[in-house]
Structures are given as C-alpha cells and as structure tokens.
C-alpha cells in the first residue's frame, strides 16, 4: 500500500464519524451545558447579562409545593404506566405468538399508535376525552351508565385527568413494548415450553417460572426504555391538560417548560429539568448492565 493511501486511510475514520460527533455536540452537548449553566444563574427570557447565583435556584425550587407535587406526579405517572404497559403487552404478545388467520394485519394495526406522531395521536385523544364532545361519554350515556346532565369531565377532574394521561401514555407505549416482548418470546427455543409441558407445568407455571424469567433481559430493556419515554415526556401532558387541573397532572418536564419557557424564568426551568438527570443516569446504568450481562451469557 502506498504512503498516500495510508495517509488517506488515517483521515477516513475520523471523517466518517465527525458528523455524528458534531450532531451529538450541537443537539445534546450544548443544550446540556447551557442547562447546567442557566441552573446556577439568574437567566430570564429577554435579559442579556448572566449572573452566577450559586444554589439559589435549587433552594427556591425545593421549597415550592408545586415542585414536590410534580415529582410525586412524575413517579406515579411513570410507575403506573409501566405496570399497565408490561402486563398488557405480555398478554398481547402471548395472543400474537400463535399463528392465526390475519395475524399480520393485527400486528400491523397494533403497531400503529407507536408509528403515529405523538402530538397527532394525543390531539385525537383530546377530542375523545373532551368535556362536551367525548365519544366515551356519549357511549356511557347511551348505555345509561351516566345521566346526560352529570357526565364525568375526563380532563377536568384531578384523578380522572391523571388516569387519562396515564392511559394515553399506555396506548402509545404498549405497541412498542409488545414488539420487544414478541422478539423476546421468539428467542426462547420451542423445546423449552414443550419440556415444561411434559414435566407437568400448566400455562401459568410455564409463563411465570419459565418464559418470563428467560425473557428478563429483554423485559428490562422494555421497562427501562418505557421509563425514559414516560419520565421525560411532556407532549401528552402538555396537549391533554397542560398540567391542570390545579397542577394535578404537572410532571417534572411539563413544570420545567411551564416555569422556564411559558413563565420566562429560564434559570428555574433549567434547575427543575436537572432533577431528571439522576433518574436518567440510574436508568442508563441499569441498561448498560443488562446489555453487558446478556453479552456475557
């Protein structure tokens, strides 16, 4: 090989990954640095100077009742959505595993909510859950569950609003989780459940003592992704309730947006969003561990 070709090769590799580095720096690195910077300053929308104020932003956030509520909501929201998603996607994956006529079509339809843009799907749900035009209310009235003049306000009552937000999130995440579960199930050799059947295990024992334990690595990937998606998401909350009523659906990301952008207190918004970091780091750590363990095994 000539010296020229060698020199070319030395530059080829950096040239190939430079766009990726640039992309990550511009879209992830700079905003992260800015957020940290803002969190320790008095930055507001419209001001030009930046003054370092130490931990002042964090002190005032920790004292605000709205922040405590948002943390609580975020946790309730993420955990309940995850539990529902894992249970439902397991049931769906079990049903979709056996071949039946039209299985391909059903699989495609189930995947649709994940493929559709979040905001579009959520706007659809905003109509479905609307206080006047809700089709759910209409059906319940037609079935005489509710009287026409005292119908539930799906997005207007604190508990119902929280439940609505959680359910829309589940609607979005179940397809994703189902696909991961299907992959996990198809990785189990066919003889293993057969051996369990011959050993005398019934449906539930095979599911809980054989199949689910064998799927643990892929199950944890689904859970960890689900946590990241729900914990950091604000689209669903913002479109459905904008955090209301009475902050009952306010989560950390939506509170950060409401404070930092809508309320123009960039510094406080940045400080709130930094509270997401420990959770995300923990999730990332577990994800890497799972990936590492399944590589070793």
């Amino acid at each position: 090989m000539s010296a020229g070709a060698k020199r070319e090769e030395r530059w080829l590799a950096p040239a190939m990954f430079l766009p990726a580095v640039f992309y990550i720096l511009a879209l992830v690195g700079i905003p992260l640095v800015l957020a940290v910077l803002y969190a320790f300053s008095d930055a507001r929308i419209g001001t030009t100077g930046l003054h370092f104020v130490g931990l002042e932003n964090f002190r005032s956030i920790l004292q605000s009742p709205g922040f405590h509520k948002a943390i609580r909501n975020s946790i309730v929201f993420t955990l309940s959505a995850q539990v529902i998603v894992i249970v439902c996607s397991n049931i769906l994956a079990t049903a979709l595993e056996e071949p039946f006529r039209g299985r391909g079509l059903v699989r495609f339809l189930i995947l649709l909510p994940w493929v559709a843009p979040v905001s579009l799907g959520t706007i659809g749900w905003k109509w479905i859950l609307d206080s006047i035009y809700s089709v759910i209310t209409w059906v319940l009235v037609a079935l005489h569950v509710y009287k026409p003049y005292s119908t539930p306000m799906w997005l207007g009552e604190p508990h119902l609003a929280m439940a609505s937000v959680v359910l829309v999130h589940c609607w979005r995440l179940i397809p994703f989780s189902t696909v991961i579960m299907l992959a996990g199930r198809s990785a189990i050799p066919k003889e293993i459940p057969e051996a369990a059947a011959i050993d005398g295990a019934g449906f539930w024992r095979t599911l809980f003592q054989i199949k689910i334990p064998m799927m643990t690595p892929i199950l944890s990937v689904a859970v960890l992704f689900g946590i990241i998606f729900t914990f950091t998401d604000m689209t669903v909350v913002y479109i459905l309730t904008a955090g209301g009523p009475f902050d009952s659906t306010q989560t950390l990301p939506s509170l950060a947006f409401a404070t930092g952008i809508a309320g123009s207190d960039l510094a406080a918004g940045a400080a709130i969003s930094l509270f997401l970091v420990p959770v995300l780091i923990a999730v990332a750590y577990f994800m890497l561990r799972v990936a590492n363990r399944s590589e070793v095994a």
Partner: protein
Amino acid sequence: MAVVETRNLTKVFKQGELGAVNDVSLATEEGEFLVFLGPSGSGKTTLLRMIAGLETPTSGEILIGGQVVNHLSPRERRIAMVFQSYALYPHLTVYKNIAFPLKAQNVPKDQHDKKVQWAAGLLGIGRLLDRKPRELSGGERQRVALARAIVREPAVFLLDEPLSNLDAKLRASAREELEQFQTRVGTTTIYVTHDQVEAMAMGDRVVVMDRGRVRQIGTPADVYDEPADTFVATFLGSPPMNLVSAGGTITGFRPEHFLPARAVAIPDSVPMRLAFSHEEYLGAERILYGRLADGPCAGAKVVSRIASTHAGVFAKDTTYDFAVEKRHLKLFDEATGIRNR
C-alpha cells in the same frame, strides 16, 4: 399389557399432502428398549411427539397402559422426554431443573430433596447441582436431562436423538452408559435416532421407518439379517447390501458375505466373477469395489468387505473368482421391493 401402543396412527400436516406418519400400528413390551430408526423426514420424531402429546394425531389411537390417551395433555400421560437439545431451563440451577417436574406435579415438598439426590446420584452428577446449564459440558447436560426425566419415575421414557449433540468419542461412551442406565431402571424406553449403529447397539427391537411408514419391526439381528424389503436392506449396513436384479427378481447379499471364492464353503455357494476397480483400506477391513463380470446380472455394481488380515492383492481391471453362500442370498420382488423369501 403393552405400555405404549399405537393403532393406525396418522399425522397429516397439510391437507392433501402425504402424511408425515401413515397408519402406524405398533406396541412396546414391558421394560423394553424400542428404537425408531429412519432417515430424516421418515416421521420418527413426529411419531414420538404424538406419543408425548406434543402433536395431535390426524387419526388413529394412542394407548398408554391400556388406556386411550389421545385427549390427554402431556402432563397426564406419565411420560418423560429427553429432547435432542436437552431443553434444560437455562435460568435454573441443575438442582432446580431436576426438581421442576416434582414441583409442577405437586409432589410434597419434603420429598423433593430425597428424589433429586437419588436421580443425581444415579447419573453421577451430584457435584454439579449448584451449576447453571451453561456451565456444563455436552455430556453433563445430557445427564441432567436424563435426571430430570427419571426423577418422577415415569411409565415411559421418550428419547429424541439424545446423543446427536455429542462428539463422536463421547457418543460411544454415552451410548453404553445410557444402555446400562435403562437396564438398571427397567423403564420402557422409546428412542429415536437416524444412526443405525445406535439402533443396533441399544435396541431390544428396532422399528425401521421410511416416509411415514413402518417398513419392519424386529430385533437388530432380524432387521439386519432378514430385511423385509429393499429399503431396510439398503438402509442398514455400511456399505449397504448389494442388490442385483434379473428376471423380475432382485437378489441381495451383504458385502461381508461376498468373498473371494477360496474363503467360502464350497458345496453350498454361488460363484460370481468380480471385475475389480478399486479398494478402500479402513484399518480393520478392506472395501473392494467392482462390477459383476458375467452371468445374468453382468455389469451390476457390487461391493465386497473383507478383513484387512486377508492377504490377497487385487489389480485394477482384473477379474477374480468370488462367491456367496446360498443361505446369504435374499430375494426381493422387483416391482414392490418386498422380500420373496
């Protein structure tokens, strides 16, 4: 009373196609080691899976202990099965793998330890109980699978090519161990294999199968020495039986019976002349290839197998006097392939 019996058992996977198993009727005897032998696609594994309850027969009956079990699930049939891949539960230790059937069949908890230790002791894997399957060698996995099968004392063992994942050297010793193990526990065993050496060495009786049908059932000596048709004649034996046809009849004789004329007892033998072409030296024996030089079957390819202690030297394209003892000639019908006498 037969432990396992099938009556006209048929399995058709795709309607209109030939069945994977066609009209199979057979019965095991108490405590016997029965081998299903056949090439791949002969239906032997499907037959075994129907007996296990993993496949539903299209028609016919399966009886275990005299009762029709067609409608029973695998767990209700009191059978144990060892799979080709062993199908150990990878997330459980060896101990828990062996204890799983006890747990699944609600055997009282205080008996588990005693039974697991008994099964592990029988197979000499007592020191492996805390390991996970991935930490075991192929031979050890096979023993764990056997221990898991024996632990609840089943009425029948079903073994689906359990030795085929072992390397050649281990296979021979595992074969012997398995045979002794079965003799010791005395449980009726059905064993599926495509390896004729395994079938001959282990089987009390061999069921030779081809394209979903039973071609012959008999002791290893029966199926080898008295094949029922040309399929059995050529499937068993390596190299296979020589078949030469003339006048609507196929004549068969094994290579080890087709010998240089001086080695055959003269009064009752059929002389033939071999146009020698080439030879394979296999250490213990020599395989001679060539064609019949004259007679009604002249030109037919034939093979002779002689001990390597035989001193004869054969030259290419030269014709030699060979012979077969009369009692070693088997006659088959040319149209059907079925044995005449």
